[in-house]
């Protein structure tokens, strides 16, 4: 769980606890005739906090019940991503520690179900650098979003940017470039990714019936890696075959998440 989500979860629990305490105190004061109150108010002061506590307890119990499966799924995802990293390293001769791997699943915002984006389930790279980007991947954005949109594996050589992008010096020049060349990125996202990776590969994860894209698995090689063929290592049938096999193995883990 991300830090912001964890903070909200803790804040929510504190609010529920304080609401229950406040309601119990208020009810007691009504019973002691310190405050005036109707029977309906008394009932509401018992039922409302009790409902909140019941919902939260049930949610916690379900989470506790699912935790072993979640751990097992996480280990399975990690195994598959590491297996793919070893395979890519074997084929490309790039050290394992340099290769990055990510698994994303498509998530809808509860307040706007039509608003889908890719939520990063797991990131794996032995080296601590580079850190994962903070890009909010959406359909069609960059190589990862393109894999989602086209339902096909995408390989991108990022060492050779289109001339317009290579010439970007500030936000004004970036905004002048047409949307398709910008790849859906904001200026801040573009700056965050610029020069970071030499190449990337993204493969869609399909639902079991093959009708829907439910996630994307991606691999990258940072631009700091020295290679005789910079930008062309991942465009290899063996790498693509392994990545697509991993994406097919990962469908179960995503569907259970």
């Amino acid at each position, binding site marked *: 769980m991300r830090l912001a989500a964890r903070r909200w979860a803790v804040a929510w629990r504190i609010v529920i606890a304080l609401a229950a305490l406040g309601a119990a105190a208020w009810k007691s004061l009504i019973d002691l005739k310190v405050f005036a109150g109707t029977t309906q108010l008394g009932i509401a002061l018992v039922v409302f906090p009790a409902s909140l506590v019941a919902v939260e307890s049930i949610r916690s119990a379900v989470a506790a019940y699912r935790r072993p499966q979640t751990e097992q799924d996480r280990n399975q995802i990690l195994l598959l991503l590491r297996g793919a990293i070893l395979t890519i390293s*074997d084929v490309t001769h790039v050290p394992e520690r340099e290769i990055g791997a990510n698994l994303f699943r498509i998530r809808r915002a509860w307040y706007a179900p039509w608003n889908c984006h890719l939520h990063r389930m797991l990131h794996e790279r032995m080296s601590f650098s580079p850190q994962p980007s903070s890009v909010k991947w959406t359909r069609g954005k960059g190589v990862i979003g*393109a894999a989602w949109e086209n339902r096909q594996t995408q390989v991108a050589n990022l060492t050779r940017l289109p001339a317009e992008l290579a010439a970007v010096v500030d936000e004004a020049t970036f905004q002048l470039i047409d949307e398709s060349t910008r790849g859906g990125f904001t200026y801040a996202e573009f700056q965050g990714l610029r020069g970071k990776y030499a190449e990337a590969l993204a493969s869609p994860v399909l639902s079991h019936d*093959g009708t829907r894209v439910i996630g994307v698995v991606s691999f990258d090689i940072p631009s700091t890696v020295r290679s005789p063929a910079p930008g062309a290592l991942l465009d290899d049938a063996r790498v*693509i075959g*392994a990545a697509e096999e991993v994406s097919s193995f990962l*469908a179960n883990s995503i569907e259970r998440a």
Partner: protein
Amino acid sequence: MASDTVDEKGAGEGRAILYRSLRSLHPDSETEAMIARAEADDELSNSTPGVGVDRQRSGRTRFRGN
């Protein structure tokens, strides 16, 4: 079609390296079962076109864009 054949051969090699990597990382019965299922699917779809195709792999492409 030649490029298809070459790519499929390469993809098969990639899958074989992947299976080897997975076995080296976690040599247990679940890993073996997962690999055996994938190999059986491959075998079936190769020997009987259109039958036994793992639909999860229907999104595979032999050609890439960027």
